[in-house]
């Protein structure tokens, strides 16, 4: 019962702030509502017994990515901030399509019979994640490290440009 109350409260906050993010006319308010939505997703991870992922979610999404987006908004803002985030002319067809998708998704999920497993979740996840990441998925781990380096260099080159050497 408490689980149900917690779940519906968190789902309401997460989905409500995400929806308000879309319909807000001020892009700065959109960024702050996106932050609330990310923190709501971190709470969903705690409901799913994923404590380490909840911490990573708050650090990376609510910390780093929101700050990135706010930087981007401040670099490109001009004019009246209350009119910075309008809808395009596709808004109404997109809304109809999205409502249809949400209904189809909900019906499909409810109708499907899922193969449940009855193993209790582990108490702490950090050690198990570290074991998996540095043994079975070590190649993916290293490739992700190289990708982050490439993304960093690429972002600097795209913004600053390359200096001619001669």
């Amino acid at each position, binding site marked *: 019962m408490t689980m149900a109350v917690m779940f519906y409260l968190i789902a309401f906050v997460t989905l409500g702030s995400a929806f308000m993010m879309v319909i807000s006319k001020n892009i700065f308010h959109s960024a702050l509502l996106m932050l609330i939505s990310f923190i709501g997703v971190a709470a969903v991870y705690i409901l799913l017994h994923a404590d380490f992922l909840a911490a990573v*979610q708050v650090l990376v999404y609510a910390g780093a*990515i929101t700050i990135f987006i706010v930087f981007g908004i401040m670099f490109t803002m001009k004019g009246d901030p209350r009119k910075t985030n309008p809808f*395009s002319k*596709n808004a109404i067809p997109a809304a109809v399509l999205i409502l249809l998708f949400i209904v189809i998704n909900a019906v499909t*999920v*409810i109708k499907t019979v899922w193969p449940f497993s009855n193993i*209790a979740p582990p108490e702490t996840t950090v050690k198990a994640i570290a074991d998996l990441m540095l043994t079975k998925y070590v190649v993916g781990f290293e490739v992700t490290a190289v990708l982050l380096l490439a993304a960093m260099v690429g972002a600097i080159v795209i913004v600053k440009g390359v200096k001619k050497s001669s």
Partner: protein
Amino acid sequence: MIDILMDKFLTIGLEHFLILSGTLFFIGLFAVLAKKNVIAVLMGIEIMFTSVNINLVAFNKYTAAEALLTGHVFAIFVIALAAAEVAVGLALIISIYRQRTSTDVQDFDWLKW
């Protein structure tokens, strides 16, 4: 009948998390399709990334617990990719803004003829 429905509604299971993450994904997709400002489009993409992570973790807990925490590891990879994506995306947006002084997606039409 009503009892069974109330029971389904009040015992939180896999379906609840899947519907939550699916709805969040489509709200993000709505932002991508319907907004004019390119930074709002980027925010919609971020919402879509997070909702996919909820799916991975929920499936890991309810249907694949014998696979240890593979879903968590993949969620961490997705988070790293999202961080890289937002860095490169914002670099592109700022680079384009210098030439066009606009963040309207309608103005980004070099590849259109």
